[in-house]
């Protein structure tokens, strides 16, 4: 089983329905350049998710996390956005369907694995890295705990272990990188999904798959692949038949990598470092000269004009 899945991954870069639909394909360029061509992603079809929370349990076990207080199959409070935390790196929130009374939509949330992660742009020690597989991973051995990543993440994902006195960590989904990289498996939550609401594969292929679904007018999908452009693009992509704004998705995001917002400020630093001292020393020399009452030297041009009886003006 393991071997066949690995070969499937290698051959088509897709699993399940995606590979059947699209087959092996060359990679179309994603929205932003830095996506490594072979980077993976997951497409979530919100109209398929049944809200069984099996993904939460699989995530909890895969990552060896403490058991949560409420059992996994407990119903999520309606209309409340749940935040990933220390006992699961993925959570499913349940929202009422605004168009169909009594029906609900279940929304799985986890780290979006941005193509240009805001957490990585924020981190002063470089504790976050994006791997060629597309996973955004965190190195707890250098983190000093400033929590800028938690404050900056536009999706509100990272969890900080405030309760730990001596070894608090930032915790979040790592796309089950070791399963992908070493075992050739799909992420545990994808594997566990009985409804096949999640499709793992090359991100570029997933976007094509999503487009194909959106094109079918009978299906009634909202014309939006959430994650294609949000924050410059994310590895996790969502399609839905209910508008995303009704489902707790942040809708006020930049459609560019967040690092673009600080690039100007960061690039100004070396300029100030180099030009600042020169400017200040110049001002100091000028102030000294004024203080000493030294007459300003006559400009060369004026000197020249005076000698020639001002004839220079005529030219």
């Amino acid at each position: 089983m393991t071997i066949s899945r690995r070969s499937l991954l290698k051959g088509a870069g897709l699993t399940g329905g995606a590979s059947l639909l699209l087959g092996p394909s060359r990679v179309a360029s994603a929205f932003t350049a830095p996506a490594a061509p072979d980077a993976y992603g997951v497409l979530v079809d919100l109209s398929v998710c049944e809200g069984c929370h099996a993904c939460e349990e699989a995530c909890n076990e895969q990552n060896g996390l403490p058991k949560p207080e409420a059992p996994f199959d407990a119903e999520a409070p309606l209309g409340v956005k749940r935040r990933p935390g220390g006992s699961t790196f993925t959570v499913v929130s349940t929202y009422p369907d605004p168009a169909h009374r009594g029906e609900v939509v279940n929304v799985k949330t986890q780290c979006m694995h941005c193509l240009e992660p805001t957490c990585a742009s924020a981190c002063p020690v470089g504790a976050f890295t994006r791997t060629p597989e597309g996973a955004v991973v965190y190195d707890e051995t250098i983190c000093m705990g400033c929590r800028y990543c938690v404050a900056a993440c536009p999706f509100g994902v990272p969890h900080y272990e405030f309760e730990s006195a001596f070894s608090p960590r930032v915790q979040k989904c790592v796309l089950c990188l070791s399963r992908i990289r070493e075992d050739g498996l799909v992420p545990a939550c994808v594997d566990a999904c009985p409804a096949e609401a999640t499709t793992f594969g090359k991100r570029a292929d997933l976007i094509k798959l999503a487009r194909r679904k959106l094109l079918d007018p009978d299906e009634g999908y909202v014309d939006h692949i959430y994650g294609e452009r949000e924050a410059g693009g994310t590895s996790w992509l969502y399609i839905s038949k209910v508008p995303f704004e009704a489902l707790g998705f942040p809708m006020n995001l930049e459609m560019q990598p967040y690092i673009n917002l600080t690039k100007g400020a960061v690039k100004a630093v070396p300029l100030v470092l180099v030009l600042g001292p020169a400017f200040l020393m110049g001002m100091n020399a000028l102030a000294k000269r004024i203080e000493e009452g030294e007459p300003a030297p006559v400009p060369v041009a004026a000197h020249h004009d005076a000698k020639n009886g001002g004839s220079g003006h005529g030219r």
Partner: protein
Amino acid sequence: MVANVGRLRRHLTPFNIIAGLILAVGLVLTVLRFGFGLGAVTNLDDANPWGLWIGFDILCGVALAAGGFTIATTVHIFRVKRFEAIVRPAVLTGFLGYLFVTVGLLFDLGRPWRVVNPIIGHVGPSSVMFEVGWCVFLYLLVLFLEFSPAALEWLGWKRVRGWAVKLTIVLSVAGMVLSTLHQSSLGSLFLLTPGRLHPLWYSPYVPVFFFVSAIAAGLAMVIFEGWLTHRFFPDKIAHDAASRAHFDSLTLGLGKAAAVVLFAYFGVKVLGVAGDNHWALLASPWGMWFLVELIGFVALPCALFTWGYRNQSVKAVRIAAVLTVLGIVLNRLNVSVIAFGWSAADPYVPSWMEIGTSIAIVTTGVVIFRWIVQRMPILTPHPDYPRH
């Protein structure tokens, strides 16, 4: 025995008793913080990862310590020598300010023993905070060296003092450059959070807001602190009419500068609203709160500084300085905590233990300031090294 009792009684001043109580509580809170973690003493959570310690201890601390570079630049680089007498108190305030900003940072960091990581090769070169870390670290060294002549005069180490004094210009230039960078970069931190910080406070100009307001804060703090030191250290200052008149003229001069800087700050803040066309938001409750800050704590002190300078009213300038300081505190708390969490479901309110820790850190700074001022040549020159 009798002598000891007498000495004890002399130390039991209201100041010492209150400071002692605060520090005792602070000590307990310190043990709780480092023994049991951030969660045990703070109300921070994932939705509100930054609280009072970032907003007040660090952001306000750095802004209010800006008097050091402002006055050092004025006197040593622009050679406005009449302000020379206030360089040392301003530099001391700056040095202690940054020292206790660092202490506040150690309380706030999850793993404070790794505070040196950005300095020792763990690099996040695209991170604004990486740059802030480096600048604050270097500027703390600069302030230590700028302050050192006073300590060396007190110790009587003439030769070392001579070397330290030779560094004055270099240190002033370094101080100005490093301060330009990190004062503005503390604002740049929030460039990354457009979805979280309320749009009236979020602006591409936020680094400029932080830098310009820091200069106003620094000037206001120097005025405020000069007032306090003249009240509380009467034996450390000259009382003749000429000295008093000179001190008043310095206060008025600083007030004039503060008026200009606040006017410019008001201007860029309005530009920020105009640039993003956020005028309509001013009519919302958050808009009212924004106007309280902008009118009550920027425009009003600006007008009061101007009025005070024109009418030679030292009192008006001092009131304006207090308003300015409060306004900067309000601004930094808005940007990092209040308006930052405007959309949070559960708004953050600091725990009493967070507030107590902040008060204890400030109190420690005041106690050390007092200890130094009473011993070292800060408010008046050392007789062996008269100013020219």
